[in-house]
C-alpha cells in the first residue's frame, strides 16, 4: 500500500512538470495558433539557465525559481517578435516547422557550449531527505514539485478566470475572430502570451534542474510526451492540459512500477484511446460543433 502511495506521489511530481509545460503549450496554441515544437528546448534552456546562474553568479535554486521564468519570458518575447509573428498569418504548419528548426539550433548551441555530459547542479537547501506522512516516507522534493506545480496551475487558472486579461486570452483561445469582432485588440496580447507560455516551460526546467540530468537533449523526449499530453487534454484546452499532464505522469509512474516493459508505450496507447473515443481530447471542443 505504501508503495502505491509513493508511486502516486512520484507520478504527480512527474505530472507536475508535464502540466506546467503543457499549460504553456496550450496557451500558446490557443491564442496564437502556433504549435510550439521548441517547448522542450525552452524547458531545457530553463534548466541550463539555472545551472549557469548557479555556476557563474552563485544564484541558488530558490532565487533561480523566480529569475529564470522572467529570463525565459524575455526569450519568448524575442522569439515571437523576431521569428514567429512573420508566419502567423500562414498555415500553422509553417510555424511548427520554424519552431522545430529553432529547437534543433538551440539544442546544438547548448551542446557546443556545454558538451553532452551535462551540467552540475546543487541539491536545494531544505529539499533533501524524506517527509513522513502517515507513516510513509515520501521524498521531500517530490512532494514539493507536486504542490508547487498545482499552486502555479491554480494561480494561472485564477489569472485566466478572474482577470480581464485572462478573459481575453480565453476568448481568443476559443474564437480569435469573434473576439476581435467585439472590439478587443487580440494582437496586443500575442507577444506577452507567447512569452508567458515560454516562461512556464522555463519554470518547469528550473524545477527539473535538481532532479534531472541537465543535458542539451533533456527536452527532446520531454516534448514528445508533452504533445501526447496536449492531445489527450485537447489542443487549446487549458484545463485539459493540466489534467492530462498529471494523468500522464501517473500513467508513466504506474506503468514503470507495475508493467515496466510497457511503460513507454502506455502513454501513447492512452493517447490513441482518447483520440479514438473523443477526437478533440478529453476537454477539447469539437471544431465542427
Amino acid at each position: 500500500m505504501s508503495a502505491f502511495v509513493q508511486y502516486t506521489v512520484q507520478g504527480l511530481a512527474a505530472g507536475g512538470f508535464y502540466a506546467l509545460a503543457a499549460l504553456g503549450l496550450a496557451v500558446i496554441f490557443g491564442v496564437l495558433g502556433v504549435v510550439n515544437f521548441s517547448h522542450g528546448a525552452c524547458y531545457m534552456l530553463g534548466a541550463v539557465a539555472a545551472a549557469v546562474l548557479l555556476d557563474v553568479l552563485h544564484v541558488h535554486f530558490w532565487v533561480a525559481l523566480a529569475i529564470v521564468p522572467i529570463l525565459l519570458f524575455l526569450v519568448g518575447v524575442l522569439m515571437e517578435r523576431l521569428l514567429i509573428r512573420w508566419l502567423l498569418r500562414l498555415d500553422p504548419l509553417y510555424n511548427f516547422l520554424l519552431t522545430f528548426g529553432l529547437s534543433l539550433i538551440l539544442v546544438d548551441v547548448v551542446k557546443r557550449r556545454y558538451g553532452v555530459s551535462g551540467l552540475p547542479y546543487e541539491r536545494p537547501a531544505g529539499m533533501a531527505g524524506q517527509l513522513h506522512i502517515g507513516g510513509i516516507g515520501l521524498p521531500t522534493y517530490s512532494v514539493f514539485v507536486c504542490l508547487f506545480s498545482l499552486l502555479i496551475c491554480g494561480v494561472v487558472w485564477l489569472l485566466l478566470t478572474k482577470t480581464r486579461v485572462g478573459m481575453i486570452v480565453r476568448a481568443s483561445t476559443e474564437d480569435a475572430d469573434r473576439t476581435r469582432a467585439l472590439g478587443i485588440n487580440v494582437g496586443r496580447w500575442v507577444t506577452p502570451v507567447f512569452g508567458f507560455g515560454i516562461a512556464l516551460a522555463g519554470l518547469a526546467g528550473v524545477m527539473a534542474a535538481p532532479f534531472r540530468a541537465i543535458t542539451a537533449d533533456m527536452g527532446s523526449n520531454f516534448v514528445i510526451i508533452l504533445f501526447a499530453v496536449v492531445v489527450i487534454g485537447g489542443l487549446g484546452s487549458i484545463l485539459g492540459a493540466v489534467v492530462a499532464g498529471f494523468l500522464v505522469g501517473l500513467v508513466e509512474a504506474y506503468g514503470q512500477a507495475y508493467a515496466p516493459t510497457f511503460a513507454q508505450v502506455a502513454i501513447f496507447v492512452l493517447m490513441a484511446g482518447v483520440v479514438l473515443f473523443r477526437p478533440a481530447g478529453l476537454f477539447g471542443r469539437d471544431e465542427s460543433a
Partner: protein
Amino acid sequence: MRNKKPAAVVAVAVLGSLALAACGGGGPTAAGGKLSDGKVVIGLLNDQSGVYKDLSGPNSKVAIQMAIDDYKAKYGAKAVAKTIEIVTADHQNKPDIANTKAQEMYDRQNADIILDVPTSSAALAVATVAKAKKKLFIDITAGTTELTGKSCNKYTYAWAYDTAMLAKGTGAAVVRNGGKSWSIVYPDYAFGQSMNKSFTEAVTGAGGTVQQSIATPFPNDNFATFITKAASTTPQVIGIMAAGGDLINFVKQYNQAGMQSKAQLAVGLMFITDIHSLGVDQFAGTTFTEPWYWNFDAQNKAWADRFQAKTGTRPTFAHAGNYSAALNYLEAVQAAGTDDADAVRKQLDGKKINDIFLRNGQIRSDHRVVHDVYLAKVKTKAQVTEPWDYEKIVQTIPAADAFEPVSAACKM
C-alpha cells in the same frame, strides 16, 4: 575491315593495362611488405554527437593521432606505414547505423582497422562485419562479455574492459566490505543485461545475495519508481548498471530521494566525465572499478598533460585505450611488414604489452586483453586538488585476477 582496327586498339589497351597491373603495387595479399592501396587507414567509429560524445567521441581522434605521431617519431624513415589516415564516423549508438558505417569504412574508405565503438549492441554488429570482411576491429569502449564469448571471432579484440571485470572488481569488493544484500537496477539492453548477469554472478560468488534485478527502459530520465522498487526490499547495496546520462539522472534522483542514508550505492560503469558532469559531491564515496586513471602515476599524468595540451580537457580511459590500441596496431603492422589483417593479427595474438594504458597486459587466445585494473573511490570536494582529480585509487587488481577466464562459448 574498318571495324577491326578499333577492336585491335582496345585489345592492346586491355592487355597493356593488365600487364601494368601485374607489375604494379600488388594487392593486400602480396607478400613482402606491401600496404593495401599504399597506406594504412584507421577507422574511428563512435558516438560523435550524442550521450557518449564526451567519454570518447571526437577527442579519441586526437588520441589516435598522438599514437600515429609517436609511431612515426619512433621509426622515422624505417616506418612500414608511411602514410596513415584516420577516418571517422558517428554511429549514434545504434547497431544498424554501426553496421552500415562499418561496412562503408571497410569497403569504401579502405579502412584496415576500426577502433572504439561504444554501446554493446553496436559493437556486436561491428564484430560481425569485421568477421565477414576479414578486417580488424579493436573495441575499446563497449562492455559486453559476448565480444570475447559467444560472438568472438579472430578479427575482433576487446582492449579495455568488460562487464565481468567490472563485476569482479566492484561486486566482490563491496560484498567483502559488508554489503551483502543487493538490489540491481539495470537498463534493458545488451550492456545492461550483461552487467546484471555479471554482477549477479560476482555478488553471489563472493557470498552475497541479489534480492531483485529491476530492468528499466533505455534511455530513461525518470527513475523515481525504480528507486522506490529497489529500496522496497531494504537491501544494503543498490547497484546501478546504467551509464552516461542515465547514470547521472539516477544518481541525482537517488540522492534527492534521500537514499544515501538508506543503502550504499555501487556503480557498475563510471567514466570520469560522469563525475565531472554531476559534481564530485553527489558521487562522493562511491566505489567503482576503473580500467585506467590519468592521475594514477607520473607516466599516466605525462600522457594526460600531452592530451590536455591538445584538447583542453583530461582523458577518460577510452581516450587512453584508443591511443594504446592504435599504437600497438601500428607496431604490429611494422613487425608484419604489411597491413594485411591476417598477418597483423598473428603479431597481436598472445602479445605481452606494457604501455601507458596497459600494465602487465596480454592479448589472450579469446582476444580479450587482460591487464591490471583499479578499484577507485570518488573523492569528496575537499580532497580534490586540481580540476578532474576526482578519483582515489584504493587498490590495484592484478591482471590475473581482474578478468574472467576464457569462455567455453568462444569458438574461433
